[in-house]
């Protein structure tokens, strides 16, 4: 079987969606040299936590032992699942994320199964001998246009309600007549959030993968900031008035903590939503953000499911607690846009 045949039959994962397979002309097995973002062809060895991978088409695909899969070498930070590093051991590697992140698992949440094991087969190379890397397919610079306003969405942790809040605010802003971009600023490449933003009718959806990274974990802060600027510029190029930007994980996660502590972040966002699970988390989060000079416009997330918890959080923080229905309401969303400086003439 030729290389082309092998690659054609392999399952290319979601994070490779920008890659042109035709650029792959050779392979090697120099796995110790693999860098974050390099494409790796591997075979499924033993199924574990992930029994599916995510395809560029936006659907999951079951995987079976022996299947060939094209993924990107990367790290992962997911307290609910794994911590992993961008290292490829020729004897075996781990499927760190279903979006297509392969690396070495170093920690696992005790409530989930071990990672699905993979046998690396090849590192994919270009004609010039360089490894094929996601960064080579990243969005390019856009001519300077008016930058969209940005509403940031932060949270206490994974699964605090950030993605739902982002998607519902996108929906509300779209219903209010604005052209809206949705951006996942940090995290590990996967189509779940991406699809949820798209389903809410965002006029542009992008994540750090579009800026050339399979994950932002352990990436330099400047690279992440540049990626965010690139995605916002792309949203502006696509005609968006406003962008809702989710920052993954909790306030104390390495990259998130560095981003929000950088004065650049406070200048970037014109509005802020904070997702949390209860009133105590709300108080802690709001106090932490205040130390950084950041004041949310509203609380949301799991806390908003309980009227009693909402009352506690509102009383303790002085901030409104918005349900997903509130965020999707164009009357509520308009307030975010107007506070962000979008007047009457900017509406679609």
């Amino acid at each position, binding site marked *: 079987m030729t290389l082309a045949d092998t690659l054609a039959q392999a399952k290319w994962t979601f994070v490779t969606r920008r890659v042109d397979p035709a650029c792959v002309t050779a392979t090697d097995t120099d796995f110790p040299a693999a860098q974050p973002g390099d494409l790796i062809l591997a075979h499924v060895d033993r199924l574990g936590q992930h029994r599916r991978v995510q395809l560029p088409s936006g659907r999951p695909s079951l995987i079976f032992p022996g299947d060939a899969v094209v993924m990107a070498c990367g790290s992962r930070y997911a307290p609910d699942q794994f911590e992993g590093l961008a290292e490829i051991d020729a004897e075996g590697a781990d499927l760190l994320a279903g979006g297509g992140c392969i690396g070495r698992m170093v920690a696992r949440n005790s409530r989930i199964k071990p990672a699905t094991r993979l046998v690396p087969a090849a590192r994919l190379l270009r004609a010039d001998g360089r490894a094929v890397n996601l960064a080579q397919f990243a969005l390019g610079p856009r001519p300077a246009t008016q930058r969209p306003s940005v509403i940031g969405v932060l949270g206490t942790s994974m699964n605090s309600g950030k993605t739902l809040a982002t998607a519902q605010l996108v929906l509300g802003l779209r219903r*209010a007549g604005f052209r809206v971009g949705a951006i996942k600023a940090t995290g590990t490449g996967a189509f779940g959030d991406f699809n949820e933003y798209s389903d809410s009718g965002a006029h542009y959806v992008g994540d750090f993968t579009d800026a050339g990274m399979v994950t932002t974990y352990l990436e330099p802060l400047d690279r992440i900031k540049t990626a965010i600027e690139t995605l916002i510029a792309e949203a502006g190029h696509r005609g968006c008035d406003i962008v809702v930007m989710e920052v993954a994980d909790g306030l104390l996660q390495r990259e998130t903590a560095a981003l929000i502590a950088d004065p650049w972040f406070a200048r970037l966002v014109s509005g802020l939503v904070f997702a949390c699970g209860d009133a105590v988390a709300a108080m802690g989060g709001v106090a932490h953000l205040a130390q950084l000079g950041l004041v949310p416009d509203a609380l949301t997330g799991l806390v908003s499911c309980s009227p009693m918890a909402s009352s506690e959080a509102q009383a303790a923080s002085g901030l409104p607690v918005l349900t997903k229905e509130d965020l999707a309401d164009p009357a509520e969303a308009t307030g975010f846009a107007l506070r962000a400086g979008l007047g009457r003439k900017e509406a679609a």
Partner: protein
Amino acid sequence: MKDTLIETSPLTLRRVTACSSAGRLSARIIRPVRRADAPPMVVLHGISRNAGTLARLFAPEGERTGRTLIVPHFPADTWPDFQRPSKAARPDLALLALLDLVASEYPDIPGPVDIFGHSGGAQLAHRLAMLYPHRVTALHLAAAGWYCRPDETMRYPYGLAPGKDAFAAKLVRRNTAALRDFLHIPTCVYVGTEDVTRDDALRKTRALDTGQGPHRRARACSYVTALNAAAEAAGVPPRARLIEMPGCDHDVVCAITQNDLAARVLDARTALI
């Protein structure tokens, strides 16, 4: 219902129906042959739900001024409440969906709109503009029964002082967030000099009589004063005008046929902007 006048004129008439989470809303879209570079005019009926009559009476003026008219109809069976966003109904959501549909089907009119409303339609018009000022270029309010004042002198829905009701608190927050942009909207408030009857359709409460006046004429005067005062307080140039129609009571047909209300509304743009 037949639109006989429109059917014999060069205007084009089309009906569209928009769907939203608030329910369906249909409207007549009336396009002139010669089209001016000006926003469309949304024409909102009152509790008599006389959308056909308003379409017929506004159509010649739409043709004369080159303005596209959007005339929604809120049927009594599906929209028993349509004068304001409430727990029972969200006509604002239906109107936004309608405007989006019109924008998608008529790419030459994608932007914000002028809005005219009579009576209950005027109530809806100013409340829509309070929530979504970016969608409205000018307001024409004719003989509303009462208003939501842009200040905290009265509790919501008569003003923006928060009450105890949670839904009202949300609307106060949303209206307050958009207030400054709302105050930028040029607004004409029309009322007949004889619209002083405390008829069955007029909401009469002690708070309303005291806070806004005993009848529509007094309430219109009070509202314009409140709008301009709120604008000045916010550092926004006052842009509300009161236009009294001599000899006119609450009859919109009379206002149009004897006081040229439709012509005044469609000609007002140059003076307002």
